[in-house]
C-alpha cells in the first residue's frame, strides 16, 4: 500500500464521506488513490471555494469538513478559508500535497512553505515526513480539529511520501501530551454562577457560536430561569429566533432591545462567545452596569482576553449548561422583563419603505414564504446584516456566515457545503453583488453535482457596507465602491452555466420572484435589483457604545440614549 492509499484509509476510518478539493501535481498520487476510494469527492473550481465548502459542510453538519489541494498555489489558495474557519472555530482538516522531500527548500516548482504560512491561522499543522506516520497524524488532526475549541488543522504531505510504501499500522495512538481541553466546568464556579444569577435584578444570557451544539440545554436553561437571551451573529439559531425570551442580536447592527439589555444588565452570563469588537464596541463602555460577568468558554485564553470576567468557567457549553440546569430555578424578573418588553416593542427591527425594491423586504419575503425553514448562508456586507436581522432562524446550524474574518465570497461555497451535508434542506444563499463575484466560479460546482442551492443576489450596484461607512464617516466620498457600471447580468451569467437565472427589479414583482426561486427545480441564481443607497440600521459606529446607537438613516438621524 502506498502512503496515499493509507491516507484515504485513515480518512475513511475517521468517518470521512466527502472531500472538497482540486487536484494538481503534488497531490496527484492521492487523487489517483481516490479513484478507487469510496470517499466522495466534490471538485471545486478554486481551492478557496473548496475550503469554504468544507467549512459550510462542517457548520451545517457538526462534523469535520475536509478539503484537499495541491502544493504551492493550490495550498496558498486555502489561506483565506483556513483563517475564516480559525476565526469562527470551525473543524476543518485541509490536506495539501507538497513537493518531494528532496526538493523542499530549493524553491522548486509550485513549492511554498505552507505549514509556515498557515501556522498563525490553523489550530495546528503537520508536515508529514514518513508515510508510516500518516494514520497517527490523521487521527491527531481530526481529534484536534473537532475537540476543545474546534478549528482548522492542515496536513502537508510531500509527493514522495504519498508514493512511499506504507508499512505502518492503522492502530496509531494519539501522541498529544500537551493537549487536554477541559470540558467539564468547575462545580464551584458553576455554583457561584447560579448564585450570581439568583441575586441578579437584570441578568441576561448571551450566547455565541460555541453554543450551537448546546441548543437543547440552552433552551431548557433559558425556559427554566426565564432569562432573556441574546445571540451573537455566530450564535444565531443556537436559540430559536421566534422564542419570546429572545431579544435578538447584539452589537454593531444588533437590536435596540439586545443592546440596551446589555447596557443595563447587572449580571451577564456569556456562553461560547469571545466578545468580538463588533459585539462590545468600545470595551471600556461595554456593559457598564454589569458587576458580574460569567464567561463560559472551552478556550481558557478567551476568558479575560477582552472583558474582565468575574466568574470564569472553562468548559464545553453543553456540559456546563447541563450542570447549571440541575441547580437552575425560575428567576424573579418581572420588572426587568417589563423594561425589555418596552424596548422590544418600541424599537423592533424595521425599515423605511421606499418606492424601490429593498433588500430587507426581499429577505422578509423569503422568510415568510419558507416559514423560516431553510439553511441560510450569506456573503459579507449589508445583505449579511439584513439576513441576520430579517431571517431569524429557529434551528441550530442554520445560519452560516463569516463572523470573525468577514470573508466576502463565502456565501455560495458555504451553501455548497451545507447542501452536501444536508441535502434534504432548502439552502438559501443571500449574497451581495460584490460578495458573490469573489467566488462565483463555484456555480460550476452547483451544476456538476446538481446541487439545489438557491442563490439570491441582493444587487445594489455597490460595495454597500463600505459605501454606508463612506456615507457616515467619510462625507459621502464614494471611493471605489461603485460596481453597477461593470456588474454582469447575473441572470444571464447563471444561464451561461446552465443554471436558471431570474431577475426581479420592481416591488410589485417581489412575491412572484420569490415563488419562482422557491419552486424552481434545481439551482437558481436570482438577482434582485434593490435600492442602491440603503443603509443597515440600527448601527453603533465602530468603537462606539450602546449609547451611540444610530437608529435610522443619517438624513433623519436620531441619537438614542441607551
Amino acid at each position, binding site marked *: 500500500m502506498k502512503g496515499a492509499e493509507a491516507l484515504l484509509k485513515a480518512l475513511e476510518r475517521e468517518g470521512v464521506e466527502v472531500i472538497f478539493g482540486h487536484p494538481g501535481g503534488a497531490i496527484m498520487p492521492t487523487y489517483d488513490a481516490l479513484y478507487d476510494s469510496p470517499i466522495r469527492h466534490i471538485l471545486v473550481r478554486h481551492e478557496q471555494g473548496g475550503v469554504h465548502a468544507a467549512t459550510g459542510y462542517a457548520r451545517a453538519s457538526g462534523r469535520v469538513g475536509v478539503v484537499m489541494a495541491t502544493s504551492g498555489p493550490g495550498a496558498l489558495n486555502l489561506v483565506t478559508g483556513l483563517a475564516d474557519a480559525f476565526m469562527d472555530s470551525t473543524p476543518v482538516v485541509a490536506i495539501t500535497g507538497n513537493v518531494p522531500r528532496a526538493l523542499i527548500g530549493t524553491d522548486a516548482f509550485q513549492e511554498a512553505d505552507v505549514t509556515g504560512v498557515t*501556522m498563525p491561522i490553523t489550530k495546528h499543522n503537520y508536515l508529514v515526513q514518513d508515510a508510516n506516520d500518516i494514520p497517527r497524524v490523521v487521527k491527531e488532526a481530526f481529534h484536534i480539529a473537532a475537540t476543545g475549541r474546534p478549528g482548522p488543522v492542515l496536513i502537508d504531505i510531500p509527493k514522495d511520501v504519498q508514493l512511499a510504501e506504507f508499512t505502518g499500522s492503522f492502530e496509531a495512538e*494519539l501522541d498529544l*501530551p500537551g493537549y*487536554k481541553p477541559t*470540558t467539564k466546568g468547575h462545580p464551584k464556579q458553576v455554583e457561584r454562577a447560579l448564585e450570581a444569577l439568583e441575586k441578579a435584578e437584570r441578568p441576561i444570557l448571551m450566547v455565541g457560536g460555541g453554543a450551537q451544539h448546546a441548543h437543547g440545554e440552552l433552551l431548557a436553561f433559558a425556559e427554566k430561569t426565564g432569562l432573556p437571551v441574546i445571540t451573537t451573529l455566530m450564535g444565531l439559531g443556537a436559540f430559536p429566533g421566534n422564542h419570546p425570551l429572545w431579544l435578538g442580536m447584539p452589537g454593531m447592527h444588533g437590536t435596540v432591545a439586545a443592546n440596551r439589555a446589555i447596557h443595563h444588565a447587572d449580571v451577564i452570563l456569556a456562553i461560547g462567545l469571545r466578545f468580538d469588537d463588533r459585539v462590545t464596541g468600545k470595551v471600556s463602555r461595554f456593559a457598564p452596569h454589569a458587576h458580574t460577568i460569567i464567561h463560559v468558554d472551552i*478556550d481558557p*485564553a478567551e476568558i479575560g*482576553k477582552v472583558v474582565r470576567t468575574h466568574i470564569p468557567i472553562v468548559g464545553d457549553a453543553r456540559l456546563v449548561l447541563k450542570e447549571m440546569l440541575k441547580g437552575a430555578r425560575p428567576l424573579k424578573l418581572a420588572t426587568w422583563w417589563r423594561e425589555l418588553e418596552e424596548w422590544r416593542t418600541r424599537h423592533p427591527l424595521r425599515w423605511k419603505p421606499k418606492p424601490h425594491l429593498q433588500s430587507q423586504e426581499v429577505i422578509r419575503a423569503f422568510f415568510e414564504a419558507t416559514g423560516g425553514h431553510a439553511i441560510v448562508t450569506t456573503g459579507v456586507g449589508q445583505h449579511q446584516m439584513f439576513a441576520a436581522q430579517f431571517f431569524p432562524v429557529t434551528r441550530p446550524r442554520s445560519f452560516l456566515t463569516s463572523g470573525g474574518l468577514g470573508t466576502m465570497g463565502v456565501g455560495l461555497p458555504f451553501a455548497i457545503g451545507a447542501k452536501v451535508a444536508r441535502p434534504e434542506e432548502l439552502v438559501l444563499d443571500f449574497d451581495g453583488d460584490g460578495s458573490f463575484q469573489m467566488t462565483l466560479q463555484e456555480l460550476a460546482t452547483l451544476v456538476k453535482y446538481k446541487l439545489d442551492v438557491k442563490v439570491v443576489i441582493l444587487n445594489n450596484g455597490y460595495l454597500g457596507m463600505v459605501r454606508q461607512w463612506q456615507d457616515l464617516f467619510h462625507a459621502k466620498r464614494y471611493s471605489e465602491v461603485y460596481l453597477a457600471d461593470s456588474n454582469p447580468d447575473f441572470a444571464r451569467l447563471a444561464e451561461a452555466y446552465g443554471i436558471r437565472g431570474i431577475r426581479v427589479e420592481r416591488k410589485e414583482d417581489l412575491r412572484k420572484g420569490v415563488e419562482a426561486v422557491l419552486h424552481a427545480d434545481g439551482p437558481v441564481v436570482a438577482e434582485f435589483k434593490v435600492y442602491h443607497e440603503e443603509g443597515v440600521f440600527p448601527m453603533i459606529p465602530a468603537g462606539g457604545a450602546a449609547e451611540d446607537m444610530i437608529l435610522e438613516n443619517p438624513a433623519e438621524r436620531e441619537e438614542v440614549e441607551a
Partner: protein
Amino acid sequence: MRHVISVLVQDHPRVLNRITSLFARRGFNLESLAVGTTHQPGLSRISLVVSGDDRTLEQVEKQLNRLIEVLKVTDHSEPHVERELCLVKVHVAGVEERLAVKDIQEAFRARVVDVAQKTLILELTGDSRKIDSFVEALRPYGILEVMRTGAVAMSRGERTLKVRERREVV
C-alpha cells in the same frame, strides 16, 4: 514589568517557529529566547523574557498553552535562579589596557577564553543585570563584539517544571 517564563515543549520541528510567530502575531514583546534539550527525551525547554502588564502576561501564558506542542508554562515569579552567558571580545591595545581589563575580569569573576595579540574574549555567566554592568565596564576599552544567549531560569528548591501525567483526552 519584566518576566522570565519557562516553557516545556515537545521538541518537534518548527515548534520554536510556532512560539515566535505567536509573539509576533499577538504583539507580545519578546526580549530574549533561549532553547535547549532537557533530561527527558523528546522534550525541550524554552526560556523567554517578556515584558508587559499582568493582563498581557496572562494572555502570553494562555496563548502559549493553546499550542498543541506546549506541555507546561511557568512564569518565574517565585524565587528562582536566572543565568545568562555572555562572550565579549575586547580590543586591548597595550599593557595598560590589558591590566585594566584584567581588573574588570576579576571583579566580575569572568574568564578569559581567548587571548590574541590585540584582542581578548571574556566569558561571563550571571543574571542579566550583572552582564549589563560587565559590558558597560568594558565599553571604554573598545568592545569589538558582544554575544549574549538570553536568560535561562529555574525555580529554587523543590519546585520543578514537570511533565504532567498523561491523562486520557476527553
